[in-house]
């Protein structure tokens, strides 16, 4: 009895079912095994993010407003309080922070889109696809990193305004921008996966971003801060992103503002740019891991 049932089941699966429709997609039919499928998922999600990004021209323009305000308005507004020379110095000092700021907008947008996807149900549609959930997140983060890098390029093109000349070294800066952008997106995604209500997400983001920026050395040198704030600065991952950018950037932003170094120090030792970059990468991985664990949980 059981035997016949098994036979019937096999026949059902193996032979042509005698109806005018193609057989269900066999596992991994698009060539290759698990890894190939994961890669394809990453690509699909990346593609979706870039389409969404490029289609919303208004959002691209609006994302540029804040960085431009900081670079042009803040820099110029301080005109009366500063001499011509120190103003130019300040602009150069500010520039890496402005680049970071431009990268933050698309990262948050990606996080927000996940929160909205959850609300709209689109997320659930993805969750029932036979793909690994970590691949969904990695693809999304890469998409965010790409959008971020696009903003980064736009801001870097303004470099000469802040005495940052066009120089091959900007390509290295761009690589860092991509990494920082990925880390930012991973953080946004981790927050989005843990927070379910769009309103809460907005509040959480605006609550976190401002202090993170102010205590990163993006706006002003942080060496003058009292001890405990200095500790906060050293714990802030943004500090290392700003500093790595500043030190890689052509021009003399890293030693501006009176000539001294503005890099963070660990007990008198300044970590090299490579270590700072590694820290950002580690931070990105940590965020991504948290997000994936949370995201893969079945309730």
């Amino acid at each position, binding site marked *: 009895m059981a035997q016949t049932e098994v036979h019937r089941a096999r026949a*059902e699966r193996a032979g042509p079912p005698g109806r005018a429709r*193609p057989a269900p997609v066999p596992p991994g039919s698009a060539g290759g095994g698990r890894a190939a499928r994961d890669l394809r998922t990453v690509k699909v999600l990346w593609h*979706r993010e870039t389409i969404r990004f490029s289609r919303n021209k208004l959002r691209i323009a609006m994302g540029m407003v804040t960085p431009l305000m900081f670079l042009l308005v803040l820099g110029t507004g301080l005109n009366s309080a500063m001499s011509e020379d120190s103003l130019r110095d300040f602009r150069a000092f500010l520039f890496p922070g402005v680049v970071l700021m431009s990268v933050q907008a698309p990262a948050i947008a990606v996080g927000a889109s996940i929160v909205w996807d959850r609300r709209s149900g689109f997320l659930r*549609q993805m*969750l029932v696809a*036979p793909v690994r959930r970590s691949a969904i997140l990695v693809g999304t983060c890469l998409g965010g990193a790409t959008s971020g890098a696009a903003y980064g390029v736009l801001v870097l093109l303004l470099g000469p305004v802040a005495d940052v000349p066009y120089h091959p070294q900007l390509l290295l800066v761009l690589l860092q921008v991509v990494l920082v952008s990925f880390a930012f997106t991973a953080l946004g995604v981790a927050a989005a996966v843990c927070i379910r209500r769009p309103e809460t997400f907005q509040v959480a983001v605006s609550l976190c971003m401002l202090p993170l920026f102010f205590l990163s050395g993006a706006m002003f040198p942080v060496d003058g801060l009292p001890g405990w704030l200095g500790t906060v600065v050293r714990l802030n991952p943004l500090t290392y992103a700003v500093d790595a950018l500043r030190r890689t950037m052509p021009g003399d932003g890293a030693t501006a503002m009176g000539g001294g170094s503005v890099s963070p120090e660990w007990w008198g030792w300044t970590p090299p740019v490579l270590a700072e970059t590694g820290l950002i990468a580690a931070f990105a991985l940590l965020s991504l891991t948290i997000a994936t664990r949370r995201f893969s949980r079945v309730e």
Partner: protein
Amino acid sequence: MSGPHAVLVEGLRKTYGTHEAVVDLDLAVAPGETYGFLGPNGAGKSTTIGMLCTLLRPSAGRAEVAGHDITREADAVRRGIGLVFQESTLDGELTAEENLRFQADLFGLPRARARRAISELLDLVELTHRKDSPVRTFSGGMRRRLEIARGLLHTPRVLFLDEPTTGLDPQTRVSIWEHLHRLRAEQEITIFLTTHHLEEAEHCDRMAIMDQGQLVVEGTPAGLKAVVGADLVVLRTDDDERAALAVQDRFGLKADTGPDGVRLRTQDGAGFVPRLCAELAVPVHAVTVTPPTLDDVFLHYTGRTIREADGPQQPHFGPRR
């Protein structure tokens, strides 16, 4: 283990803390069948679908969908099912075609086959002329049709429809069902749907009534109505109380009075009316005879009408924060 069932559920249970959303559910759906889950909001229909689609983990029991175990072979189940959720789950920024292509890519359909399937399905749901428009410009009915097309893209064996016509106007609802019937005629596909619209359950080969997490009764729509059996006769008279008493005395039938008049049930309603009018001393103004509806079936088994039972509660997937 792949038996002759499209869906096989044994002792399925889902609890949230102390709340039992689904209690010891057993059911079997044959391939090609259209099976309907009827029940008020919060009856556990969506939770059941969530488990069958591998989105929720059952607290106890087991189930097989498209020949695979929902917990141990989740990926195989996902490849074998199509899904249309209660709410719209399309990406409004993408065009209709892009939404379908996104799904095809996620499921790893080969390029050529995906292209063919997409154009065929857009034809089936009559959206070919709008394939390049962003989905946010679509009406509710168009979105739902596109979602059905998307659910079919990877030629699933079982199509789950969670409240497929909720929030749509009656005309659109009819057109969605026309599409579904055409689909069933063209492909041998199992359709598993939930609804709290009684009319919608009439489209099913077999249906089950679910209430408070439990399967109350199961059968064909006609069979279930036959259990309730009798036609409903409603009389409007000068004096409902007296008329009701007279009906009980003369015909030995149980009659209730309500705001709509005297209600009674009898096998052959239409044949009974002339005799009733002739023998009743109270003047009768109007008589309506209604064959049993699924609402009567629901009332019969749960003691409430489905509208009374319909709470404002929405099913949820996990805690909200």
